[in-house]
């Protein structure tokens, strides 16, 4: 049948664009919801239209990563890149409708243009997929939805462009001049920007809220010292409460490292393991074994940062070991750091040091959660340590971002 491949390509392009619109809408909605600084479930499913869920770690990792948005220092959370996808897919959907209505008579140049620009989302997807795999170590399902849409769109574009060359039309094709593709390209650029411009123009001012999360009452730890985390250019006095077996602490640490922030922080660390074995503030252990690993960090001395980063790198294994019992965990510590470290971990004085750290948390009545960041004595709100990190640092410690 003349023009059937072209029609099929247009239908496929429309479906791919609508799918892309749906996934990028979900992603944008998740982002926008968080502008209220509250906790929300996140869409994270291959199934289009699946509801948001709290089990969405990979999508949260992607959302909190530096690659999820632009202009993070100027807008709280930044301008999510899904907005550009939203605009672009709107354009592709409209252009698919245009091609579909034309059917087999669609101008060849229109298909050539579409074949070319339909590669752009695929290229963007390839870049984002590579970042996900190499930098984040996880792939978010909603992002995969966008990647699939991009692949389908590219396939549809290529197929349509090829078919328009080879297939004979039932009626003569329309011929368009060379200027029109340029107009379409400009339209694509403008339409891709529209949702982002609307978002940026209507985003609320978060500045009044970033200083409202309290201050330390007791600035120094009694009878003890904080753990010093060595950094290359310590500028901003910072206190971190961390649990080496807490995945959120790991993600936070990776963000600080990934965004080249940590090197400009003068970091004092307070160990706050969420493990009832040493932490009386919990009824049951959230991270079994965290007390022992915290003691290893305390014993790290000048190498405390290396021990902490080792604990984060090996977190899955150490968490499993922690569930098996203290001996497995102690063996892991001995294997990596040697007998001297283990002796220190088993020393009563280290128990007392860890207890002093926990009492410091208790003296300051901090929330029982990790991680927590204090710039000087001012507490950085939880939501400002993830989505709003760069914006908040830009406001409270701009030298850190320079």
């Amino acid at each position, binding site marked *: 049948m003349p023009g059937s491949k072209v029609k099929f390509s247009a239908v496929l392009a429309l479906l791919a664009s609508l799918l892309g619109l749906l996934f990028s809408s979900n992603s944008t909605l998740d982002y926008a919801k968080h502008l209220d600084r509250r906790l929300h479930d996140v869409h994270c499913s291959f199934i289009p239209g699946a509801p948001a869920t709290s089990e969405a770690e990979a999508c949260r990792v992607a959302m909190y990563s530096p690659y999820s948005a632009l202009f993070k220092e100027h807008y709280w959370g930044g301008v999510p890149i899904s907005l550009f996808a939203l605009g672009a897919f709107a354009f592709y959907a409209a252009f698919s409708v245009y091609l579909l209505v034309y059917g087999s008579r669609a101008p060849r140049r229109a298909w050539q243009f579409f074949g070319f620009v339909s590669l752009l989302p695929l290229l963007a997807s390839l870049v984002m997929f590579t970042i996900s795999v190499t930098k984040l170590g996880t792939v978010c399902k909603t992002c995969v939805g966008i990647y699939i849409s991009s692949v389908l769109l590219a396939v549809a574009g290529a197929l349509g462009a090829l078919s328009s060359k080879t297939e004979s039309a039932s009626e003569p094709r*329309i011929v368009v001049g060379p200027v029109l593709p340029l107009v379409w390209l400009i339209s694509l650029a403008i339409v891709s920007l529209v949702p982002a411009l609307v978002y940026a123009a209507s985003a609320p001012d978060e500045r009044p809220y970033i200083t409202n999360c309290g201050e330390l009452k007791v600035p120094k730890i009694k009878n003890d010292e904080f753990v010093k985390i060595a950094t290359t250019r310590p500028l901003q006095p910072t206190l971190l409460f961390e649990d080496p077996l807490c995945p959120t602490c790991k993600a936070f640490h990776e963000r600080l490292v990934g965004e080249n922030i940590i090197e400009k922080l003068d970091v004092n660390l307070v160990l706050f393991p969420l493990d009832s074995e040493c932490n009386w503030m919990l009824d049951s252990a959230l991270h079994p074994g965290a007390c022992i690993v915290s003691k290893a960090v305390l014993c790290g001395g000048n190498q405390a940062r290396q021990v902490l980063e080792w604990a984060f790198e090996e977190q899955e294994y150490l968490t499993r070991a922690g569930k098996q019992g203290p001996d497995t965990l102690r063996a892991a510590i001995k294997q990596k750091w040697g007998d001297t470290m283990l002796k220190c971990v088993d020393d009563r004085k280290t128990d007392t040091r860890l207890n002093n750290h926990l009492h410091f948390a208790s003296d300051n009545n901090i929330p029982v959660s990790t991680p927590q960041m204090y710039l000087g004595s001012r507490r950085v709100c939880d939501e400002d340590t993830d989505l709003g990190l760069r914006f908040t640092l830009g406001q409270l410690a701009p030298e850190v971002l320079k």
Partner: protein
Amino acid sequence: MTQPVRPGFGAGAASHMPVAAAAGLGAGALFVIGAAIAVRIWVAGAAERLTTPEAEQPKVAVADQSEVGYCTPQFKQVLERVLHSCGLAEGDSRRGCQPADVKTFASISDDDFNALFTPLKDRGAVVMFDEGEDKLDVKAQKLLEDKWFARKGARYFFVVARASKSGNQAKNRALSHRRANSVMFHLNEVASDPEIEQKVGLLWLGNEFAQLSKDYCAWPSSRGDVKCDEAAINRSAFVSWVDCRL
């Protein structure tokens, strides 16, 4: 979105052109305006929630010293009186309370006083002494250290020293005082804690107040392997962290 057809093309193709362009433009407008409105609504919704406090704030646990079941109002009342009367709360130089003080501020009977400490059976221990002696033996030292280093979330460490069921009151008072001090001295040696004075509450009861019955022989002690009777259990100092907030 299109340019005019070239002359000589069929009327069908020409008639499709404005329809296709209109459909494309219409769909474009629909999708773009729809996306823009959706984004505006989502952001505005978040902005409104931002300025509107949550009706039910999520409860967040706050770090604090431990507080366990035995911290009854009566127990806390006695605890508070001990802290104030024995100089702990103010951190002044006065150290400890003697029997007359305890009797006065506790305002409770001997049995009720002892009953208050019953829930501390597993948290604390009885450090035992030789007759007429105030020296801690090795087992007593070890038990004392074990208890001291198992602080967890407690703020105050109590030492309740006794002397003997029989004998001269003044001598017993002095002996129980020396026993309390022995405990304190040893803690000072092992704890390396400059704020130990603000943590340890000393009470010495001589043989005048709240003496222990033989039942207390079943409590964890430094001489669990030795025969215990009422006389032996009172040659002791009961030590324990107290997990109560005041």
